[in-house]
């Protein structure tokens, strides 16, 4: 078992990393429910090792460079990330829109790469953003390629965690939607932010499972129109990437496939 002070240190690290703003020692101690002197000792440990840093001209703290580095190192465990970069860039160049890569971890999908167009763009995605497999088109196109028994396991997980499904959805409706997405070779959605739309295309690896998905995000509807030439072009690019993955299936296998998905739970 970890000793109490180390546990407190990690608890404080999580508080600083999940806060919406920089925090001072007193506020951190209050949120961690520990005396200020205890918080202070943990914060020295975190600061000296680069996990938190102090803002200029302030006594408040923010996540340090080590936290960003570790989260990015995690994303790099997926070999598909490095291999997909030229393809994502090709799509961004062709569409002038932000392109992202999602992979599976447990019953979630997580965004591990973002390529933005050179011009300033409005992006609603961020690196390490994660969603359950029924939430959003980037997750759903991965779920659409799961074997039926795994989808059933997923529903059991959602029920056991008391996670609400979208209103009006029954298991059967979700299954129908997944089948439609698999048949079409893509999934689309309104992002719920202004006119922002997304379209997700699966990267199909060994057999028929999707090891990842590529999502194109933008405010213009030209890519998301079903007969769009640009959409066909983007699907073609992702198919090329899928072919590369299929040739080296073991190299691109999920590095966390051995982890029981039921044990992958996030605090947020």
């Amino acid at each position: 078992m970890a000793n109490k002070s180390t546990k407190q240190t990690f608890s404080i690290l999580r508080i600083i990393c999940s806060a919406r703003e920089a925090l001072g020692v007193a506020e951190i101690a209050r949120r961690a429910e520990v005396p200020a002197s205890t918080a202070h000792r943990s914060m020295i440990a975190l600061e000296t090792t680069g996990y938190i840093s102090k803002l200029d001209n302030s006594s408040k703290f923010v996540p340090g460079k080590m936290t960003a580095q570790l989260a990015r190192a995690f994303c790099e465990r997926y070999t598909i990330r490095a291999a997909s970069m030229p393809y994502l860039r090709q799509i961004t160049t062709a569409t002038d829109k932000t392109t992202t890569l999602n992979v599976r971890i447990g019953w979630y999908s997580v965004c591990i790469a973002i390529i933005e167009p050179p011009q300033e763009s409005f992006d609603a995605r961020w690196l390490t953003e994660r969603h359950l497999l029924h939430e959003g088109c980037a997750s759903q196109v991965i779920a659409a390629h799961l074997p039926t028994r795994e989808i059933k396991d997923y529903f059991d997980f959602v029920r056991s965690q008391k996670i609400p499904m979208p209103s009006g959805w029954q298991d059967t409706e979700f299954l129908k939607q997944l089948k439609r997405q698999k048949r079409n070779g893509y999934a689309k959605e309104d992002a719920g932010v202004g006119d922002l739309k997304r379209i997700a295309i699966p990267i199909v690896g060994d057999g028929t499972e999707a090891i990842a998905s590529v999502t194109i995000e933008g405010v213009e509807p030209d890519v998301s129109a079903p007969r769009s030439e640009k959409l066909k072009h983007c699907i073609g690019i992702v198919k090329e990437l899928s072919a590369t993955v299929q040739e080296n299936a073991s190299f691109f296998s999920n590095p966390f496939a051995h982890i029981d998905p039921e044990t992958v739970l996030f605090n947020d």
Partner: protein
Amino acid sequence: MTSGSTLNPSHVNKSSVNVLKVLSVFAQHNAEFGVADISRKLDISKNMAFRALKTLVEEGFLVRDASGSRYILGFRMLELLNPDFDDPDIQTLCREFMQKMHAVSGLTVALQIPVGFSHITIDGIESRRGKVLARVVRGISVPLHVSPGSRAILSFLKDEEIDSYIQQHQPLEAYTENTITDPEKLWDDIKLVRDSGYALGYQDHFLGVNGVAFPVLDIEQRPHGAITVVGPIEVISHEKFMLLIPQLKKIADELNSVTRFYHASPIFSHV
């Protein structure tokens, strides 16, 4: 921007520091380690390494790999990246490695970034042996074919970008008698830099100094910038300089295993 601490380091929680140091070892490309690796890397006992790894597994920051014998980063790591805060800038990422290069060489170390068709120096550590041996002059624009820093950056642009640079800057300006101004010779040097992973100085920017520059690259091998190590020829001969390069290159490789996590900005998009 972040700055110096107001916290009192004499009150540090040492057991936490040890566990955090073990976790930090995993902040590089494809890191996977066993107990013995951690013990060796951090010079701690195997028992201590094992206890730290066990704690990190309990916290979800590490998991065992598929073979069960080694540890890799765990999914709880995802909770540590907060989109409300900016990524560290290239200067912050490079600083610790520049200090290591300075410690190894005793020479002046400078960080250069590409800006359009030039590089500018944005940070540096000056060599001081009684007096400053080579100054770090920030903010001066130097063309991409002049100096090892420039050529380390130029060499990792796309071939068509390099062609475009050469065409737009014909005839290539000479800063000293050693500046490479012949496009064919420049291409030969670019191939050399790509193969070796560093650009040698030929006294092509200033006479009287030996220098070497290492590219700082992203995941697609695009340049964030370059780190140049430089010293006057009276202080370090070419032969002694060459002996230093393997040690400096090792530090540059460590740095690149971190900077690859961050995208380099497109260089010519605003030109």
